[in-house]
């Protein structure tokens, strides 16, 4: 049976052992399942463990590999999928009581893609109810209750991919799939000290995923390194006729191999001067250190400011309107009252009141923001800043009243559908992870991956993991 260290190996490292037949996919899946059964409840990390599926897929992978049919770097690798992705025949709760018994008779495209490359699904990750679309005041806004941070179980993992963050940080699976409409991959990745990729809007099919704000929803990987994210992204990216939001075939697919970096361009980094109003002291120090790393190992690092405009306001209105439409029947039926969070029970009513004129004004502002950001990327390959201005917050914090700060980068990055990556870059004095964020031009997912990968070639923060007993 594999030892403790196996749980924190990267996908790339696991793949080498599996391909060379030094590691059995069945033993690996069983080990992760055992660990998930033991530790998962401690963090409220899972909505559901799927041992039957995991062992069936692992056995199939093992058989194929023994026969010499190795499918690639995800073959035999265990993962967890956020519980808003449909898996045929299994409950898909969207983290919310009104959907606790929901079962689909088809797989989400992402699930099929991962099945196709031989990955092994060991469970469905817990999440904030309806991915937070109705608003929430507390970390406990979930059918699975509050997700606890493996670095400090009195702290939150952030949402809405809250279980995905806990699973990767605690070594319960080799990677997890998260989703982001606004912040839900970047924030949990930062709070949990893992690497997370928010792909360009439209590069990963949302077919079979819960729709929150269809013009902003994105699916992406959370894993142990930028390289792992690249490998997972390569498996799930691509045009899908079932999701009309996906980009065309020639722009959707993504391929990755480490050798690509040999021929990649030196990256010009724009260091954002106005992304956050201020940084918590425990965050500021690691970010300053990260800035020095960038200056040493990247082609150039120059200060730059985000364009000024009501980007957050536009994003908020787009999300609110589209969410109210996505959950119209839930709101109108009154079943929204079954949601856990007191804010979630009423916010839908407020969001329904938008006028079409205001929504369209938000969409026009989005168009302007896209052009401004595209112009900024004429000068820089990526822009960088802290992924979050604070470390993981206490579970009991009232998010509505006690954690309010401007987030222009989150606003503009998400309304423009820009790719972003958060990578670990240090710890606070209380040993909570700090994340560094790279954002790139729409379609240039490789630039943010390359930035994360370059940073990780010269640091080892991504190799740290919490000590669990």
């Amino acid at each position: 049976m594999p030892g403790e260290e196996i749980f924190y190996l990267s996908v790339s490292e696991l793949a080498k052992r599996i391909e060379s037949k030094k590691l059995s996919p069945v033993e690996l899946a069983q080990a992760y399942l055992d660990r998930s059964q033991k530790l998962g409840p401690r963090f409220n990390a899972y909505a559901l463990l799927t041992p039957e599926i995991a062992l069936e897929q692992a056995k199939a992978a093992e058989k194929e590999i023994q026969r010499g049919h190795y499918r690639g770097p995800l073959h035999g690798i265990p993962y967890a999928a956020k519980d808003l992705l449909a898996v045929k025949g299994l409950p898909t709760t969207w983290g919310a009581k009104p959907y606790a018994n929901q079962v689909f008779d088809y797989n989400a495209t992402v699930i099929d893609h991962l099945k196709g490359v031989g990955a092994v699904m060991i469970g469905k990750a817990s999440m904030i109810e309806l991915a937070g679309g109705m608003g929430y005041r507390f970390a406990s806004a979930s059918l699975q209750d509050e997700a606890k941070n493996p670095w400090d179980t009195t702290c939150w993992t952030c949402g809405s991919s809250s279980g995905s963050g806990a699973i990767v940080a605690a070594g319960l699976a080799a990677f997890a799939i998260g989703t982001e409409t606004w912040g839900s991959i970047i924030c949990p990745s930062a709070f949990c000290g893992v690497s997370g990729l928010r792909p360009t809007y439209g590069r990963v099919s949302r077919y079979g995923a819960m729709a929150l704000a269809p013009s902003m929803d994105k699916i992406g990987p959370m894993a142990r390194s930028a390289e792992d994210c690249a490998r997972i992204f390569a498996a799930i990216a691509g045009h899908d006729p079932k999701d009309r939001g996906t980009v065309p075939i020639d722009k959707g697919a993504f391929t990755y191999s480490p050798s690509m970096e040999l021929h990649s361009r030196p990256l010009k980094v724009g260091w954002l001067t106005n992304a956050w109003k201020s940084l918590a002291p425990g965050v500021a120090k690691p970010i300053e250190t990260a800035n020095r790393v960038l200056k040493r190992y990247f082609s150039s690092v120059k200060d730059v400011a985000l364009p000024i405009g009501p980007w957050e306001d536009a994003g908020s209105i787009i999300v609110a309107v589209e969410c109210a439409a996505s959950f119209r029947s839930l709101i109108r039926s009154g079943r929204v009252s079954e949601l856990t969070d007191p804010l979630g029970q009423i916010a839908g009513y407020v969001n329904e009141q938008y006028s079409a004129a205001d929504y369209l004004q938000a969409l026009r502002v989005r168009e302007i923001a896209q052009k401004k950001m595209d112009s900024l990327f004429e000068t820089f390959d990526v822009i960088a800043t802290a992924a979050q201005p604070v470390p993981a917050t206490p579970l009991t914090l009232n998010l509505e009243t006690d954690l309010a700060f401007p987030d222009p980068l989150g606003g503009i990055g998400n309304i423009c559908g820009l790719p972003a990556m958060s990578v670990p870059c240090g710890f606070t004095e209380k040993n909570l992870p700090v994340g560094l964020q790279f954002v790139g031009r729409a379609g240039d997912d490789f630039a943010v991956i390359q930035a994360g990968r370059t940073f990780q070639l010269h640091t080892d923060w991504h190799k740290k993991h919490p000590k669990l007993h």
Partner: protein
Amino acid sequence: MGNKSDSAISRREFARRAAFVSAAASLAPSRLLSPVSVAAPLPAQQTANAPKLTPEGQAEVESRIQAMFAQYGNRLSDAQKTDIRRLAAEAQPPLDRLRAFATDNGDGPGLYLKPLMERERKPSPKPAKPIPVTTPKNS
């Protein structure tokens, strides 16, 4: 770090903000303004920290509140109505900022987001010959 925005609605996580933003049905049907639909406390009684709004903004907020209470009032507790009043008021400043942002008549809405990667960045060359307008354009 400098900050360009003093937006009071912001947070890193969109989810919370989704609750703070709403827009007005600027001309609510008169039935929605019926006094019988008002079951929650008056705004002045429970929104001590509410944003300062113009009279027009306040009227718009009230209009939204009346619309919500008319439609859903019978399923809301007094505490929820108080919360809704606060949320509706806090939603107004973002709306005002958005509306104040200058856009031209020709600025098109990104109706279904297509990242710029899909578009032709350079403007298309003008046709060599003007296209005769023989039919009226749709508005």
